[in-house]
């Protein structure tokens, strides 16, 4: 019996060693953009907060308006949309930053600024790693994070995992689904671009290949404040431009590095934390959790060895007993 116990302890210590590898398995950046990855560059400095993107998003994704409080009070319904944030009925959302007397656009002090919230289409998405049934998938070519309701079991682990709280759940439905932006892939399939970009009157939401968008973003943050720049409209490929005065950009592209990078990039003239965007490490949480899990379960060697030891131990102790 001493022998079997020693064997068992050996197995246990092997398991502990694997688990002890915690720091070394904190992998670096492990996933890169696909060549054809598409995304959006949202430039908050030229956004005028008109919410045309929101209306277009609802129209082309068949999303219902969220009743305004005034409407609820008067019994009229569905005329005004008054969503507060992203929700199961709202896939993108313009939010306002205000400070002091809110007199100056793009100013942190006594100013105001806009930010557009939507799915970031992460390069290494935590939600995709979290989903137990592969209901969330990152498209190999476009990099769009897509949802399959026929696979989903509604466990909401994707919501726990997403650092931006993007996936939403239909709590008010008996037959609920997870709802998130899929970059209008139904419109792209017909040669179109996401509705929010097509209907943006200023070019604040700009569609394109992520590599091109990153290049465009790097160009913009180097522009001299007060100069004039010809901002592309709708889609980078279209070539349509609109000249505007350049705001004092923060020298940072949000989404270039966050959690391993995102396909939705943001530019701003006020600090991103003031806009409610989280400060994240340069690697995804998924790379850490998968690193540890795959470290422990590498080739299923540890569990199988452990089971072997357990089978031996259990057999030895029960073979002569009546249970």
């Amino acid at each position, binding site marked *: 019996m001493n022998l*079997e*116990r020693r064997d068992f302890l050996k197995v246990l210590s092997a398991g502990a060693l694997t*688990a002890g590898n*915690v*720091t070394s398995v*904190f992998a670096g950046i492990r996933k890169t953009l696909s060549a054809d990855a598409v995304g959006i560059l949202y430039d908050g400095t030229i956004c005028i907060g008109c919410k045309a993107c929101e209306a277009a998003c609802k129209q082309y994704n068949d999303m219902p308006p969220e009743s305004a409080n005034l409407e609820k009070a008067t019994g009229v319904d569905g005329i005004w949309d008054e969503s507060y944030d*992203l*929700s*199961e009925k709202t896939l993108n959302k313009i939010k306002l930053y205000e400070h002091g007397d809110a007199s100056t656009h793009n100013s942190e002090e006594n100013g105001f600024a806009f930010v557009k919230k939507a799915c970031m289409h992460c390069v290494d998405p935590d939600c995709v790693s*979290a*989903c*137990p*049934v*592969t209901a969330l998938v990152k498209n190999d070519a476009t990099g769009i994070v897509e949802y399959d309701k026929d*696979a*989903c*079991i*509604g*466990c*909401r*682990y994707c*919501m*726990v*995992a997403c*650092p931006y*709280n993007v996936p939403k*759940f239909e*709590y*008010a*439905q*008996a*037959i*609920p*689904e997870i709802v998130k932006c899929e970059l209008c892939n139904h419109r792209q399939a017909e040669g179109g671009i996401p509705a929010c970009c097509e209907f943006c009157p200023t070019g604040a939401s700009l569609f394109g290949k992520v590599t091109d968008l990153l290049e465009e973003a790097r160009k913009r943050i180097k522009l001299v404040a007060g100069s004039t720049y010809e901002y592309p409209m709708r889609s980078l490929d279209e070539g349509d431009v609109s000249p505007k005065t350049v705001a004092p950009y923060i020298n940072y592209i949000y989404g270039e590095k966050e*959690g391993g990078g995102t396909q939705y990039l943001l530019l701003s003239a006020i600090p991103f934390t003031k806009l*409610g965007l*989280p*400060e994240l*490490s340069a690697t995804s*949480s998924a790379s*850490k*959790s*998968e690193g540890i*899990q*795959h470290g*422990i379960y590498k080739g299923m060697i540890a*569990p199988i060895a452990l*089971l072997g030891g*357990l*089978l031996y*131990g*259990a*057999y*030895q*102790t*029960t*073979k002569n*007993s*009546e*249970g």
Partner: protein
Amino acid sequence: MHEKQALGGRLLTKPFWVLLTLAMIAGLLLIKRFLFGIGAVTNLSDGYPWGIWIVYDVLVGTALGCGGYSIALLVYIFNKGEYHPLVRSALMTSAFGYTLAGVSIFIDIGRYWQMYNVFLPWHINVNSIMFEVAACIGAYVFVLWIEFSPTFLEHRKSLETKKKLNKFLFFFIALGVLLPTMHQSSLGSLMIIAGEKLSPMWQTGWLPLLFLLTAITMGYAVVIFESLFSAVALKRPLDETPILGKLSVMMIPLLVLFLLLRFGDLIWRGQLGNIFNDGMLGAFFVVENVLFLIPIIMLASAKNRMKATTLFWSAGSMILAGALYRFDTFLVAFNPGVGYHYFPSASEILITVGIISIEIMAYLIFVKKLPVLPAIKHS
């Protein structure tokens, strides 16, 4: 062989009626949940997608169901036959705890009719900690009932079948140790992916080991607590105190290891100072660790360990510690961002209370009708 006997006695006692009423209230609320959605009965939100159904019923519930695992580890793997009298009732509580955790998952998940997708090879995602947890818990519920089945066979006097089953029971006993080792650690790993949303005092790569250590310790604590509590409640003699005292020693090295690992990790990551900077969270952290410390101190002397009251309170403190650690990791220290708050709704709590009631009723039915508890020695 240790003699077991059914307690007998009246089933429909006053407490039983109270439990039955609570279970029926939960049943009515569940009808509402399935007709009008999860939002109709819970305070869950997009920021807090998991509430007490997951954190109490599943996380704490399965940890409380670790008695069978912890005792099997001792008896069958480390060959400590002297604890054999505790196996049967421990397995029974485990079977209830895990089965009802499974029921709670079914209630909590939105698209429950597709739950089996977790077991379909073309759907599963091996990168998902949730897949590991779901598959392992599902399999373990099955294993637990097989491990417990000799009790039914004895009751029905099917001794031939029992003999046959005994031949390959060792296989299920081994699985019954492997599976909880896997999923109790993975239950901790679940929160690694929550990244910056979980306070750095709780967020660590060591979550799997910390969860595993507390699960095993809670397993021993539950066996002690339940044994003493049922002895008093069912008016049985406190015959088991010496063996429970011996068992309680197991908790000390596990808890010391847990605390060393936890504080070592915090110091290593330079996060220990947060205890004082983080207001409420710091307080929760301190209370949690004091509760972990109490059983170590109370059980340190061999003389104290033989007192039923010491055992009772130290086991109680351990259970609270493990439960609070799980609540903190999944709810209290989880902050999805400005504007989100969570406190369970009355309906949510009543459904959980109903599930606990069903568990206690099942316990009463089983110990009164089946040979689960050790026979009382008449001297």
